[in-house]
């Protein structure tokens, strides 16, 4: 089954939205995780945290609402919701490390079977920096990584050991890809859901470590 890149992104983002419960304070990473905000169901009360100092990110502004002093961590212009608050960077990361954020959804380049995450650097290629990711992975109560199941060459991104420099060791709780939802547990990776168009064998063949199957695994789940 052939899918366009934007279809795949939407599928991942819509599935990731289901991780967000009403009442949650959530940090969405830069890039595809930011798109999840577009799919948050209206009956949920969610407060989005932006690590540059805002609790309560609103929609993107209308042209006449643009405020150059109001951006998200991806440096996009945003608005504030009613009940929002502003604070400085030390307080922002105190809030993150202190375990007050319920969920962080981050992008990933590689995740290992023990929940190690690599998402900030390709040696010799780019020099960008880790931003807030290394703090977030140790602070939020739950860390969910969303990414394509395989890379551009078709090789698994869920691996036994990450080959790229780590963002954090044993930090990921759940992985959501275009093909499956997997939990990182003390007994290894456990498949919870398989996306429509894929079989359990497809998931096994495109995941490097051994995977276990949940007794409640759902097929055609999303």
């Amino acid at each position: 089954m052939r899918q366009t890149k934007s279809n795949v992104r939407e599928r991942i983002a819509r599935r990731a939205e289901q991780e967000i419960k009403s009442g949650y304070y959530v940090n969405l990473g830069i890039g595809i995780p930011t798109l999840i905000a577009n799919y948050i169901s209206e009956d949920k009360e969610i407060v989005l945290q932006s690590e540059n100092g805002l609790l309560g990110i609103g929609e993107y502004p209308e042209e006449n609402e643009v405020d150059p002093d109001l951006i998200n961590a991806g440096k996009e212009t945003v608005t504030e919701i009613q009940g929002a608050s502003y604070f400085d960077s030390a307080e922002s990361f105190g809030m993150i490390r202190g375990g007050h954020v319920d969920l962080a959804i981050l992008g990933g380049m590689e995740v290992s079977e023990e929940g190690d995450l690599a998402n900030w650097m390709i040696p010799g290629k780019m020099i960008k920096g880790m931003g807030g990711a290394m703090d977030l992975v140790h602070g939020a109560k739950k860390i969910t990584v969303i990414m394509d199941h395989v890379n551009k060459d078709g090789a698994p991104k869920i691996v036994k050991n990450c080959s790229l420099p780590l963002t954090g060791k044993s930090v990921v709780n759940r992985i959501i890809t275009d093909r499956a939802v997997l939990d990182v547990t003390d007994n290894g990776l456990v498949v919870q859901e398989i996306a429509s168009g894929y079989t359990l064998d497809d998931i096994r063949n495109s995941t490097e470590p051994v995977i276990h199957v949940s007794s409640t695994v759902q097929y055609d789940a999303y």
Partner: protein
Amino acid sequence: MKKHYMNGYDAVSEIADGSTLMVGGFGLVGIPEQMILGLVESGAKNLTIISNNCGVDDWGLGLLLKNHQIKKMIGSYVGENKEFERQVLSGELEVELIPQGTLAERIRAGGAGIPAFYTPAGVGTKVAEGKETRVFHGKEYVLEHALYADYSLIRACLADEAGNLIYNKTARNFNPMIAAAGKITLAEVENIVATGNLNADQIHTPGIYVQGLLEAKQEKRIERKTIRNG
């Protein structure tokens, strides 16, 4: 009553070659625009800059980079700047990349009399290599040291003559911690009002941290203008 400067150059002209500077801002939001332009004019070089980002190619700290005034950059995310990458890969520029929360806390510690602290960020990664670690409550933490600066250059929305500062929205970011961590802190503000005209209960940075003020109009360039349904 704090010292007033006429323009960006006037504020920074005494900053010597080889100084360590902290500069406020997240991306281009909350950066002291005119003082950065003043540094371009003064030509101070071999600077160590501590700032979350390094501007873009033609604005903010990117201007100092282009002018080869920066010897070392300490920050957390520099992905918006092609010249930065070129200078690092060619060995012209030293760089120390720090997790953003660790950067904020190291600066805060510097201004608050805390020489070092333990944090979980970076444990098990390159960031913790060669650093002391310690287990608390069954979890491993890495020791990080405070950062200090010869000068702190910050940007606020409002100041009074006593140097009390109020920031606007996400332009606050690193500015309050940076204000406290510099030996000399210079605040660039959009408006200075007479002492007594700010609500004392709403001051973000008390004037004790601020040595000089510059009132200056801000261009407030936008890096990623994003519009609803557009």
